[in-house]
């Protein structure tokens, strides 16, 4: 009897038919465009006619998450896909140790020997095949081309490997700064490899015979090479690597089924409409017409260049996915416009447009020009544009033109959401989407094309949908699976289209801006950005808020228009924009190198233009550009790092009692002076791991058990492994439920991760066991000064049985340790006060860059401190100002964590200090900060201050951070102007 196995993946449907000898007599691999039921039906009918002929009794089963629903409803035998893979591998490649399988949206690792273990990507890791697709379209190539590009690689960039959206925001700036496509392509593959290993290996080594399965690994030889390279192995991609799931499913099929009966059941698979839905966008044509008429009122005149002889203002918005250019006359009418998608490098695109303009009007007088957006720096330098302005300002200027009393502007572009409140005529409160939800416009686009539509047609489909699917407010990856589920439940393409439009809006409102009611946004709202040209999204926005908003007719051009308007207000004597002749001899060469001045090791792109002009991108500080020393910069982070450099140095003593290794991570960024002094006083030699680096992180990456824990915690794995590699035999990393009690809160806990991460290290870092490392992870309570020496004596006796310790000796050592901790704190405060005093002398803004002690690590803060200080502001930390508040303050949360308590105190101090502002660093995945951020914001806003939050992760792109900081600074400037 023949066996049939079907594998319904997230994007494709695969099928094999086996004869009695288990030989493949038929196989197929095709995209299903989410029309799963129809595809199965079609496939089964085809099999019936073309393959099976008269033998219609078969053993058949189905696999794959996308097929689960239909399997249940139509009584189709189901085999879980990873399980099926295992069955197939056991039969076809019995000496396999590990299988790595990447699918459209799934990544799996199967360990087949020494205890079978199976890993699938969790809710967060996102898709891999889909991810590569997305990245390819970002590079404007198809999937074969991306592989060919990668073959030509010269170097690998670090691209965040956690989820597609993160990677995207790493890649875009690389492209904008002129990095080679070949290198980016290869880097994408390495990101996939790292993502798979970090997310799935979870402490198990991938070694032995490795099998590569699934579409991406079958089609992309360079991806396989990247895996080989990182795993230091040579994996094989076997025959039929695409069909392992369907083969395993066929092997597992044991139920005899008459195919026509099954086909009948599949045909009857009813579309239940059993999904959560919302009211339609428009109930009828009248509603739609009224809506269109209303929005047609917000117009700006678009005229021809022919009959106009005056001067022009040029505005360019070099956005992440699109580039916009506007040529405005002196009256504010648009005379020329361009809107093009950004294929990576914006320079040649702008060059082409300028050439067009010079051809249209050879004698054109461009009076002044301005550029905004991700590509601002390079465009400004390449074409000698007069002004570079931050996006928020450009949008505000443009919005005012349409609604002078605007109090809220929201711009949804290809990849970002930018919105801000306007208070007293100044930008007051900026919200940018965090890296996790930046799906937005480009998401709608990718989705449309995944379903086989162009974006315009796709969104129109939703206008009159009866039951828009409720997809909630979530990031792209989650959205993908939510759509899958809705389709399974019988949602139509119209319902999905409308649902996605509503989801984009909900993301913006509830994830980014976090509004409760529309009143919070004010009455006068201007919406803009390419995504709002989409009427479905615009309608969804109005429905969600229950207000009418203004959408300018040039919604997609507002950034460029704003830049042009800005150029008009800022008078220049002489527009220096490249001339027609210069354009003809235009040269742009790109070179990439690593800056070696500081541990951030920025990857610099050096752009060379004609006449020897050079522009350097990718730098955090001004050092590589100006070669200036920054020693006199007012930056407490640098000072703290210098202090720590001293503590990191190995002890000078002999270490009669032995050597202790301390991993420098999490709370050790503050307690190291304590522990180091304590052990040194007890005659131990102390060795500390260095500041984190990318390669140190990679040393421990494969032992991380939870892919959603915060990055600072993940780094600890690398530190511990590093200490072992250095030959350290004893490692001290204590558990601490409680932190030092500063008596300013209701309690003084550490967060659960800081408190107990040593447990995770102990249970997952295998090298500790292998090398017989003495790992001390005792629970200690340094908050109880009197009890601590007694308790610590017991710990010492327990762990160093062959040595004698006296209570007196331990008490003395503890005294020194507490003193060292206090000395350290005092030094910080002293230096902080000095910086404050100096800043005041120079009339510099003071930014309290707040977070946790471990945000000091350059690999965690990515040099954000340096970037901020390059704007000529002084930087101090939250502990300095928190100490200035002498009594408890009233907060509306349970104030129970020591570090977080400092944040509230700092916010309250900053609120009352004119020349200080607070910027909060938040590590992605920090659950506790979901609570602190709202409270810190409240405290600041009650005091009339602007709250700025920066979310950080593995991500190394500082583009979004720059926008925030620059917006904050220009808002402060505006405020100052107002107050005279």
């Amino acid at each position, binding site marked *: 009897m023949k066996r049939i196995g079907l594998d319904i993946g997230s994007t494709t449907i695969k099928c094999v038919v086996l004869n009695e000898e288990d030989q493949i007599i038929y196989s197929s691999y095709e995209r299903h465009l989410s029309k799963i039921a129809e595809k199965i039906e079609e496939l089964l009918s085809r099999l019936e006619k073309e393959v099976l002929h008269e033998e219609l009794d078969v053993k058949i089963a189905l696999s794959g*998450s996308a097929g*689960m629903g239909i399997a249940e409803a139509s009584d189709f035998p189901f085999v*879980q*896909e990873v*399980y099926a893979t295992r069955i197939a591998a056991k039969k076809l490649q019995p000496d396999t140790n590990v299988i790595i399988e990447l699918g459209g949206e799934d990544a799996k690792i199967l360990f087949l020997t020494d205890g*079978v*273990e*199976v890993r*699938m990507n*969790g*809710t*967060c890791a996102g898709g891999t095949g889909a991810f590569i697709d997305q990245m390819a379209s970002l590079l404007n190539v198809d999937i074969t081309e991306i592989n060919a590009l990668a073959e030509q690689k010269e170097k690998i960039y670090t691209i965040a490997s956690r989820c597609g959206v993160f990677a995207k925001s790493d890649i875009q700036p690389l492209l904008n700064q002129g990095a080679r496509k070949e290198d980016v392509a290869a880097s994408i593959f390495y990101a996939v490899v790292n993502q798979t290993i970090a997310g799935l290996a979870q402490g*198990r080594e991938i070694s032995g015979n490795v099998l590569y399965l699934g579409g991406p690994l079958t089609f992309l030889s360079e991806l396989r090479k990247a895996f080989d390279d990182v795993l230091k192995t040579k994996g094989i991609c076997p025959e039929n690597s695409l069909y392992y799931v369907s083969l395993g499913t066929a092997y597992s099929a044991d139920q005899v089924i008459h195919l026509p009966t099954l086909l009948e059941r599949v045909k009857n698979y009813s579309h239940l409409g059993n999904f959560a839905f919302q009211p339609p966008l428009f109930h009828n044509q009248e509603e739609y017409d009224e809506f269109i008429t209303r929005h047609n009122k917000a117009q700006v005149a678009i005229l021809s260049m022919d009959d106009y002889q005056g001067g022009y203002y040029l505005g360019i918005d070099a956005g992440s996915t699109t580039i916009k250019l506007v040529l405005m006359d002196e009256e504010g009418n648009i005379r020329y416009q361009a809107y093009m998608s950004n294929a990576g490098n914006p320079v040649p695109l702008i060059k082409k447009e300028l050439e067009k303009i010079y051809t249209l009007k050879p004698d054109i007088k461009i009076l002044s020009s301005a550029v905004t957006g991700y590509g601002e720096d390079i465009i400004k330098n390449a074409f000698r544009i007069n002004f570079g302005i931050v996006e928020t300002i450009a949008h505000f200027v443009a919005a005012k033109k349409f609604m002078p009393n605007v109090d809220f502007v929201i711009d949804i572009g290809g990849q970002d959401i930018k919105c801000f409140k306007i208070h007293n005529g100044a930008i007051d409160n900026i919200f940018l989407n965090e890296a996790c939800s930046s799906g937005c416009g480009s998401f709608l686009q990718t989705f449309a094309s995944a379903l086989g539509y162009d974006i315009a047609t796709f969104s129109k489909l939703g206008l009159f949908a009866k039951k828009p699917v*409720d997809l*909630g*407010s979530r*990031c792209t990856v*989650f*959205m993908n*699976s*939510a759509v*899958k*589920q809705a389709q*399974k439940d019988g949602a139509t393409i119209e319902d999905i289209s409308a649902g996605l439009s509503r989801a984009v809006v909900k993301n913006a409102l*509830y994830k980014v801006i*976090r509004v*409760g*009611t529309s009143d919070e946004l004010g009455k006068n709202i201007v919406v803009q950005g390419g995504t709002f040209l989409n009427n479905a999204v615009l309608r969804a926005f109005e429905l969600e808020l229950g207000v009418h908003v203004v959408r300018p007719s040039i919604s997609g051009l507002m950034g460029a228009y704003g830049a042009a308007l800005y150029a008009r207000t800022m008078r220049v004597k002489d527009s220096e924009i490249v001339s027609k002749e210069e354009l003809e001899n235009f040269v742009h060469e790109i070179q990439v190198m690593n800056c070696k001045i500081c541990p951030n090791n920025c990857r610099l792109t050096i752009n060379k233009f004609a006449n020897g002009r050079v522009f350097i991108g990718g730098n955090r500080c001004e050092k590589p550009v100006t070669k200036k020393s920054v020693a006199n910069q007012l930056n407490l982070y640098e000072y703290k790092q210098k202090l720590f450099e001293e503590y990191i140095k190995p002890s000078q003593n002999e270490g009669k009692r032995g050597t202790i290794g301390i991993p420098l991570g999490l709370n050790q960024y503050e307690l190291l002076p304590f522990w180091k002094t304590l052990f040194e006083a007890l005659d131990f030699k102390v060795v500390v791991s260095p500041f984190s680096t990318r390669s140190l992180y990679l040393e421990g990456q494969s032992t991380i*058990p*939870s892919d*959603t824990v915060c990055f600072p915690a993940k780094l600890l794995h690398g530190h511990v492994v590093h200490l072992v590699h250095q030959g350290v035999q004893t490692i001290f990393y204590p*558990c601490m*439920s409680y932190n030092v009690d500063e008596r300013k809160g209701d309690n003084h*806990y*550490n967060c*659960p*991760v800081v*408190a*107990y991460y040593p*447990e995770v290290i102990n*249970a*997952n870092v295998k090298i500790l066991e292998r090398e017989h490392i003495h790992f001390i992870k*005792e*629970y*200690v*309570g340094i908050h*109880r000064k*009197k009890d601590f020496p*007694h*308790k610590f004596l017991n710990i010492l006796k327990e762990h160093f049985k062959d040595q004698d310790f006296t209570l007196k000796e331990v008490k003395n050592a503890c005294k020194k340790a507490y003193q060292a901790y206090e000395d350290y704190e005092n030094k910080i405060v002293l230096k902080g006060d000095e910086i404050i005093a100096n800043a005041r002398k120079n009339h510099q803004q003071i930014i309290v860059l707040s977070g946790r002690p471990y945000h000091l690590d350059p690999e965690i803060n990515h040099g954000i401190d340096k970037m901020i200080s390059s704007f000529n502001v002084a930087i101090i930390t939250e502990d300095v100002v928190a100490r200035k508040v002498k009594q408890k303050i009233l907060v*509306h*949360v*349970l104030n*129970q*964590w020591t570090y977080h308590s400092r944040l509230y105190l700092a916010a309250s101090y900053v609120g009352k200090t004119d020349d200080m502002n607070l910027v909060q660093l938040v590590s992605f995945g920090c*659950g*506790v900060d*979901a*609570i602190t951020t*709202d409270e810190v914001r409240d405290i600041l806003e009650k005091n009339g201050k602007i709250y700025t939050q920066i979310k950080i992760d593995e991500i190394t792109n500082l583009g979004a951070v720059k926008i925030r900081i620059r917006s904050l600074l220009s808002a402060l400037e505006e405020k100052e102007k107002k107050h005279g």
Partner: protein
Amino acid sequence: MARLVYDKDGRLLFTKEMRKEYTMIFPMMAPIHFRILKEVFNNMGYHAELLETTGPEIAQTGLKYVHNDTCYPAILAIGQLIHAVQSGKYDTHKIALMITQTGGGCRASNYIHLLRKALARAGLGYVPVVSLNLSGMEKNPGFKLTLSFIRRAIAGLIYGDTLMLLKNQCEPYEINKGETNALVEKWSAYFVERLSKSKGYSLKEMKRNIFKLTDEFALIKCDRSKPKLKVGVVGEIYVKYSSLGNNSLEDFLKDQDCEVNLPMMLGFILFKIDNRLEDIRLYGGSKLKKIVCTLLLDYCTKTEDIIVSSISRYDCFNTPGKYAHLKSLVKDVIGYGDKMGEGWLLTAEMMELVESGYENIVCTQPFGCLPNHIGGKGMIRRIVELMPNANIVAVDYDAGAVKVNQENRIKLMLSIGRENMLKK
């Protein structure tokens, strides 16, 4: 109408007057337990109402008023409360909301503040919120946790635990469909009635009731000849017990022909009391606190003994592991100082389940749950090393997580479990 009174920090108090006039509503977690507990409140002179609402509006309401990065249980519990307040079913000037506060180092201690912020945003700042905690936080003149209250609550809890344990072991095998459930209903009603008469909470009566109850469950006609896949469910307490939080995980597992085992809630209570003693042992602390906690721990251990001794009389039932035994299991695996959230207890529950034949485990947690990075996901590797037959899947729950993906992962675990079962 009751006057609104605030404390010195501006917190709206639940007054004695309100105790008479107001209905106190609280969110659902474990239905069998909470339905009985509701009666304990009513018996103590409150008007309590347990929310039995379901549906997607609850999560939507939560997402609207609570920071979206907050843990899922907060979004659901607060969503359920606000949704009820806005439903029009109640006079909003005559209701109070009740929510638990553990006082530990995890975010859960802050739910109450998030609830108040949410109420304020919804324009309902005048609705008082009552904290239910054993740490002496947030006192209210109209609400006191007296000793007799605590004793009744513990009784309600252990009745709930016993019913849950036995129901889970009978229902999958019962021959006459519905028989088990009928028995659960019958006994729940009986406990409600006893508690409403201020009866049923002495150790003596508890013992009598639980023994009788166990006897009756043992009489349910069951066919255990065809073994079912035994699956344990552990995790963060809310998503572990609440079907709203775990996308009806229990029902799903039952549909997949499994016998489900949810460890007792009493274990969590014992753990939370014992934590205080561990703190004193590890860091030092007051003698008085030690005495009070030891007394409470001993009392709860006695109630645990009742359940264990009653169930162990029958071979057809799996006897739940005692807290002391669970604690001994993790001795060399994770420290007793890990007390936030479910702490080391989560690890211990997994090990106890494997030990007693529930090798297949779903470890549930809200997406990004901090304590579970340690005691849950962080320990799975170690458990599998020590107990190679353990087959554990960690599943994240979240408003954005999709059921189909969760079920797919669970199905994989079940496939492997079935294969292991066949090998035996």
